[in-house]
């Protein structure tokens, strides 16, 4: 059980970090989600792993699991959920306004960014259609 949880956290963190370092916004957002999943699982595990234990002290006393990490995870989930929504909206807006979904700013972006630009591509296509139409006529 420890190995399973630990390796799950490790793999998700590694995959999340790799994706966050990618050049396009979509993988970055997926990476952020993976990173927050790993964080939540990790926080959950800080209360120690126990099976079939109540998170409150029962009437008879006995053993229980620490409820605080669960409360922390709940807060962390709410915040990360909201933030994923915000970053998706901002990434979409950036894509629509600048014409490409590269994370780099236009000033120092790779030439690849302008190749991917949907606005430029749209313009090129429009030019091509005009030319094609012109040659037909």
């Amino acid at each position, binding site marked *: 059980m420890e190995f399973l949880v630990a390796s799950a956290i490790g793999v998700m963190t590694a995959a999340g970090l790799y994706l*966050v370092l990618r050049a396009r*916004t979509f993988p*970055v957002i997926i990476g*952020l989600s993976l*990173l*927050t999943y*790993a*964080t939540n699982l*990790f*926080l959950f595990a*800080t*209360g*120690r792993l126990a099976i079939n234990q109540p998170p409150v002290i029962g009437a008879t006393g006995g053993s229980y699991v620490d409820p*605080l*990490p669960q409360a*922390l995870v709940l*807060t*962390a989930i709410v*915040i*990360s959920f*909201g*933030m994923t929504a*915000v*970053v998706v909206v*901002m*990434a979409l*807006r*950036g894509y629509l*306004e*600048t*014409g490409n979904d590269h*994370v780099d*700013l*236009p000033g120092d972006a790779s030439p690849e960014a302008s190749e991917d630009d949907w606005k430029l591509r749209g313009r090129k296509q429009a030019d091509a259609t005009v030319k094609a139409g012109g040659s037909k006529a």
Partner: protein
Amino acid sequence: MNHALILPILLPAIVGALLVMAARYDKVLARVFSLASTVLLFGVALTLLVMASDGSVRTYALGAWPAPFGIVLVLDRLAALMVLLNAVLGLSVLLYAINGWDLRGKHFHPLFQFQLMGINGAFLTGDFFNLFVFFEILLIASYGLMVHGGGGLRVKAGVQYVVTNLVGSSVFLIAVGLIYSVTGTLNMADLAVIVPRVPAADQALLQTGAVLLLLVFAIKAALVPLHFWLPGTYANAPGPVAALFAIMTKVGAYSIIRLYVLAFGAEAGPAAWLAAPWLLPAGLVTLVLGMTGVLAARSLGQMASFAVIGSMGMLLATVSVFTPQAIGAALYYLIHSTFAAGALFLIADLVAERRGVQRDRLVLAPRFAQAGLLAGLFFVAAIGITGMPPLSGFIGKLLILDGVRASAHATWFWTLILSTSLIAIVGFSRGGSLVFWKSHAVNAPSAPLHRGAALPFVAVGGVLACLVTLTVFAGPVHGWLELTATQLFAPTAYIEAVLGTAQEGP
């Protein structure tokens, strides 16, 4: 229990919510409420400062749940100082923004209030998890403010900013989890009690957690190599928002000073002065890189951003000495650099508004309206940020040079601080002469020379007046800050004030 302690958080929270619901479409109402709330906040902050000046530590247990089980707010000299700094800068920025910036997008005023709330909360809270929550509040508000007014470039810079900070938040949670798993507490005072007693087997986990936390605060404070987000963000944010962000880097510095003196200070056994070996080289490299960046900047906004990075480097390198003298000097420099950077961002925005297509880029452009007045203001702010006499930057640097004399690395400090000052002076002279003086030589027709409103100049003048006040009253202010540093280095009073409430409770 003193209810004034929670007002800096409650007031902007209530007004912010009210603005969202009731004053969404009425710009006059929104401005009046926002301004009234900020003026009130300033009053409250002044009261708190006077209260804290007697040297005692006050606590406020929310819902009367005793610490360390409940949530506490703690007011000591340092917290009161930072809240006041936030209120003063916030008021100036708001005065600047209500001249038109607030109407270029939606919900400026509510976001602004929530931003103030988050920053105040981060300064006042007494436990880690709430520090995380208030960090999130101030960050979420700043995401909104950062892209206020829109535009492709700004939104893209905003995405970078959000992603960096979300990764930072994840690391923050992991660090908090690690520390909690070892010590079983999230309360800072309780942590200070428990850390010395942590068994050797758990030290590795505890110290990993503490260093990860340092990493998070370093992202906020823009320490090298975690500074990459700052120039893009600040230079592309709206002018007044960038000026307000001048205090956001100080939230990171505040957290470092608070945590690593209180919980990982002299008493902490094997974990004593945990932050020092990391902060010192990082701070000095940040100083050099920031000031070199001033020389390489392509616009006034970028120049101010790199000056912020450089000043954070100087600040945190000084903090890393961890002596009362050094921290006292660092706090003086902290106040100074907040105002100086805020003023520079506002001036850069005023210039950008008047120059037309060239904006605030460092290229030749025809003359623009009120160039003389703006040149004067820029001159004063540049003197401030580069640390030339006679303004407070010079006094701050003197205090720092004096404060680090006892350190083993004093030679490094002296060499780097003095040589980077020269680089910064060259950088700002180049920027100033290119933007203001050489515009006379351009023969191209100038942009329409209409004068702007007076209010933005009042705001900039107010911030610069703070610099002058800080210079004139340098003696008393520094005396007060030395007492603050001494209070920080005697954590027993803080711990007793927080945990003592447990015995008072029923």
